[in-house]
């Protein structure tokens, strides 16, 4: 016997909502899903009329659903936003090729303009070449650091007012857990913020799917037949996040509200004044937000360009020693050349 939709609309239910355990039909699920995201956007004042908003688009399920729903809500509720898809091409053969095709399909299907920026354009290095230099052990560091700044760089080029990212409730709960496990109070402090940045020189980032469960995002994409791309990065899945994720999924089986509970815990945390707070400044080399001088991206880039790719990995003192050693060697070689040229 099919279960009827909780709203008494008369139709058969197709899914059980993880947040509420309600059984809903397709139509009532769509309505609830979209209304909740609209509510999140309105109550948190994520956007202002007339703004230009970049949707960080990876071709994955979250950003695909985000682009689709933002477009739909923008039309339905007259947000007056100018949406644009922003994609980053890391230059990983076979990985982005397919996902960029997906983003292009999103562009055509949802009629949102698209800008693709490559690591090559932004940094002069593709991930394939970086892996060629450093092997596969630390490449996720490079990829992650470069990607974080790539969005800022891209957003600045596009002159947008904000960047919307597809982080969902499960992602945020995972991040809270990971930051607790690592004792990363700086990130713990801001990882549940629905809006980050937005000070001078920085473009704010917003997370309209902050309270949206992953299961519902996948179900929504499935029932709406949205096309998305799903493959783990070929170089390495994020092992640590994978564990946090598996742990959370196990907890969720016993206690379905655990995702919201963890987000709530993260939001309510208060830090003592004695807990060191990183000063978010501007990198003197590239001009983008950073809590260190120069920023991580600039150090990694310097390492690549110097042929010392390990420069930005590990302790700063070690990096300084590597730099010093190379400068000394270069100086010696130069002197040797000078001596030779004296003849």
């Amino acid at each position, binding site marked *: 016997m099919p*279960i009827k939709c909780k709203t008494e609309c008369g139709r058969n239910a*197709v899914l*059980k909502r993880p947040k509420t355990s309600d059984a809903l039909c397709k139509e009532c699920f769509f309505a609830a899903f979209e209304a909740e995201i609209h509510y999140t956007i309105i109550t948190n004042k994520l956007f202002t009329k007339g703004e230009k908003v970049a949707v960080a688009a990876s071709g994955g399920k979250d*950003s695909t659903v985000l682009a689709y729903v933002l477009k739909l809500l923008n039309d339905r509720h007259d947000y007056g936003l100018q949406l644009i898809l922003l994609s980053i091409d890391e230059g990983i053969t076979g990985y982005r090729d397919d996902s960029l095709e997906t983003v292009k399909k999103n562009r055509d299907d949802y009629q949102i303009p698209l800008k693709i920026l490559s690591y090559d354009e932004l940094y002069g290095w593709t991930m394939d070449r970086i892996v060629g230099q450093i092997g596969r052990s630390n490449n996720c560091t490079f990829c992650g650091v470069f990607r974080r700044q790539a969005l800022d760089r891209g957003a600045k080029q596009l002159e947008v007012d904000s960047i919307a990212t597809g982080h969902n409730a499960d992602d945020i709960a995972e991040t809270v857990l990971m930051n607790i496990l690592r004792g990363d109070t700086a990130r713990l402090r801001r990882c549940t913020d629905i809006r980050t940045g937005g000070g001078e020189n920085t473009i704010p980032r917003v997370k309209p799917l902050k309270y949206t469960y992953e299961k519902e995002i996948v*179900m929504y994409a499935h029932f709406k037949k949205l096309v998305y791309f*799903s493959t*783990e990065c070929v170089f390495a899945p994020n092992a640590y996040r994978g564990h946090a*994720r598996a742990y959370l*999924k196990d907890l969720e089986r016993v206690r379905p509200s655990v995702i919201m509970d963890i987000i709530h815990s993260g939001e309510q945390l208060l830090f003592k004044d004695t807990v060191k707070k990183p000063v978010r400044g501007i990198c003197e080399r590239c001009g983008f937000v950073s809590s260190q001088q120069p920023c991580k991206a600039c150090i990694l880039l310097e390492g690549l360009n110097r042929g010392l790719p390990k420069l930005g990995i590990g302790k700063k003192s070690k990096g300084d020693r590597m730099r010093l050693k190379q400068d000394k060697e270069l100086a010696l070689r130069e002197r040797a050349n000078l001596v030779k040229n004296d003849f």
Partner: protein
Amino acid sequence: MSKSDLNIFLEFSAGAELLFGNIKRRQVTLNGDEKWTIRKLLKWMHANILTERPELFIQDDSVRPGILVLVNDTDWELLGELEYEIQPNDNILFISTLHGG
């Protein structure tokens, strides 16, 4: 040959197909003289068609948390999950949420 065959369709998406020889949809024929629940089907899948890293699909006799199961486009959580009794021509879809964002 058994008296009756139980024909069903298995579908995989969002990366789940990678664990099953990269085949997205297939028809399988089960012995129709027996009663088949999803619990029993998962064991059969493990033994017969799960070619790649079974721990990414099966956990404690069920699917790994994070894999969604739909029977004829309905969430299996509404159908009794493991105890659901499979009917002829059922379409059972497994969607991974564990691959990529």
